[in-house]
């Protein structure tokens, strides 16, 4: 080998400059392709975030039989029940709502004519439990059924959970598949571009060989060119990704109800995406050049 660093640096720099058109084409291809990958990964993380936000909203509502007497001022005893409930698998936390509280809420929810038939005495008190795994709502509901004083029926938003889960799964799958397809497409397009660029310089490679250059002597500057192009393209892609993230974050603002707000992705995960995009850029640049040049090196 014996390829001096100085030679590689000079060679890479001048070649990039003298083959501007091809350099720009390659960088553009990497940038466009990896931006798509980055954006797609980002959206996927957003969906995951939104999911975890929505999941906080899945409660199981346990009604207590209004005919069984329960203490109106639940203190220590209530605490015990709370602990017992919380120890069940998938249950994260539970809050108690007294008969009076439930009646007040029912009055608010129902229209007056319907509410008029209710009274505090006939309204059941309830425990509202947040689950760590919303899909397990049915199982949790079954477990509750044995508890003392629990009314026969345990309510949970069955239909809502199913729909939400489908949407989330589909979205997640769509963006994952999209990211993978885009990644593969990016790889194909980038390799393509590098191959074309090297094809345009095949005569140069053959002359180098005739003058006695070893394969590595020829390959290394090409690989560094590829790496520089990959890095430059990836840098653009990273900026696009970070930019999109910033824009989404900005629009999300503090509107707690907006979907974008739910999709806000924490910085570390964005950083992960960005690092991934950058690494792909470098690897594809170097490997692409090495592979692209191979057939012109076979003597």
């Amino acid at each position, binding site marked *: 080998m014996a390829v001096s660093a100085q*030679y590689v640096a000079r060679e890479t720099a*001048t070649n990039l400059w*003298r*083959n501007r058109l091809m350099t720009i084409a390659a960088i553009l291809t990497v940038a466009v392709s990896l931006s798509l990958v980055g954006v797609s990964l980002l959206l996927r993380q957003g969906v995951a975030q939104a999911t975890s936000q929505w999941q906080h909203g899945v409660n199981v509502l346990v009604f207590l039989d209004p005919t069984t007497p329960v203490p109106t001022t639940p203190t220590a005893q209530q605490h015990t029940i709370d602990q017992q409930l919380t120890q069940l698998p998938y249950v994260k936390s539970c809050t108690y709502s007294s008969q009076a509280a439930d009646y007040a809420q029912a009055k608010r929810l129902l229209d007056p004519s319907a509410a008029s038939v209710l009274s505090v005495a006939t309204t059941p008190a309830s425990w509202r439990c947040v689950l760590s795994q919303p899909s397990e709502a049915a199982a949790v509901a079954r477990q509750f059924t044995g508890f003392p004083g629990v009314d026969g029926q345990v309510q949970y938003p069955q239909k809502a959970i199913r729909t939400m889960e489908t949407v989330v799964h589909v979205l997640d799958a769509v963006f994952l598949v999209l990211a993978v397809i885009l990644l593969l497409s990016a790889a194909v397009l980038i390799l393509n571009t590098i191959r074309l660029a090297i094809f345009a310089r095949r005569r140069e490679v053959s*002359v*180098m060989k*005739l*003058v006695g250059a070893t*394969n590595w002597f020829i390959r290394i500057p090409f690989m560094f060119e590829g790496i520089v192009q990959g890095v430059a393209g990836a840098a653009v892609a990273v900026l696009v990704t970070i930019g999109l993230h910033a824009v989404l974050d900005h629009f999300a603002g503090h509107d707690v109800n907006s979907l974008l707000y739910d999709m806000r992705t924490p910085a570390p995960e964005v950083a992960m995406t960005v690092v991934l995009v950058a690494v792909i850029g470098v690897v594809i640049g170097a490997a692409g050049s090495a592979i692209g040049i191979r057939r012109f090196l076979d*003597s």
Partner: protein
Amino acid sequence: MIRFENVTKAYKAGTVAVRDVSLDIDKGEFVFLVGPSGSGKTTLIRLLLREETPDQGRIWVAGREIARLSPWRIPYLRRNIGCVFQDFRLLPNKSVFENVAFALEVIGRPRHVVESQVPQVLDLVGLGKKRDSLPGELSGGEQQRVAVARAFVNRPLLLLADEPTGNLDPATSQGIMKLLDRINRTGTTVVIATHDAGIVDQMRRRVVELHRGELVRDQERGVYGYGT
């Protein structure tokens, strides 16, 4: 230094470019390779560089049978051979200086050696002022001289030159031939394929003539042709 043993080479298209050629060239010899257009001179040179491999027969260069050389050794063979190609084969993206320097960088010569040697060689071929031009910005003869400079800048054991004066005026041609002669005197084996009857007749060195791929004449102190 060079030994051809019953070498035959046909191209895909069916042209037999070299047919059953046997030839010995000793170290330090100066040989003219002549013959009409398409007689196989360039092919012979390409065989020596292992740019092509013979279909039949064997070729030794510096004691090695080059068809048997493993691929990774080929660059080391070529570093011992300087070659002026008929179509120059300069690197289009490199300046004159860089083109010549490349032959030195390939064999790992340190920068300061390159910096001192290349301008010297460029002056020898009369291109001192063109060192920063790209090949595309040179006249035909200037490109040819860059090719000559690159071929001998690293003092090879063997110097092959394919039509090195085809684009040069007689005065410059003579300058180049004197240069090659001087290089030959330092012990380098020189093989020149040429059509320049004037030079061949004037130098009176060994002449090998090809005709339709066959070796038809091998003459000490020869001339370009019998009749022409």
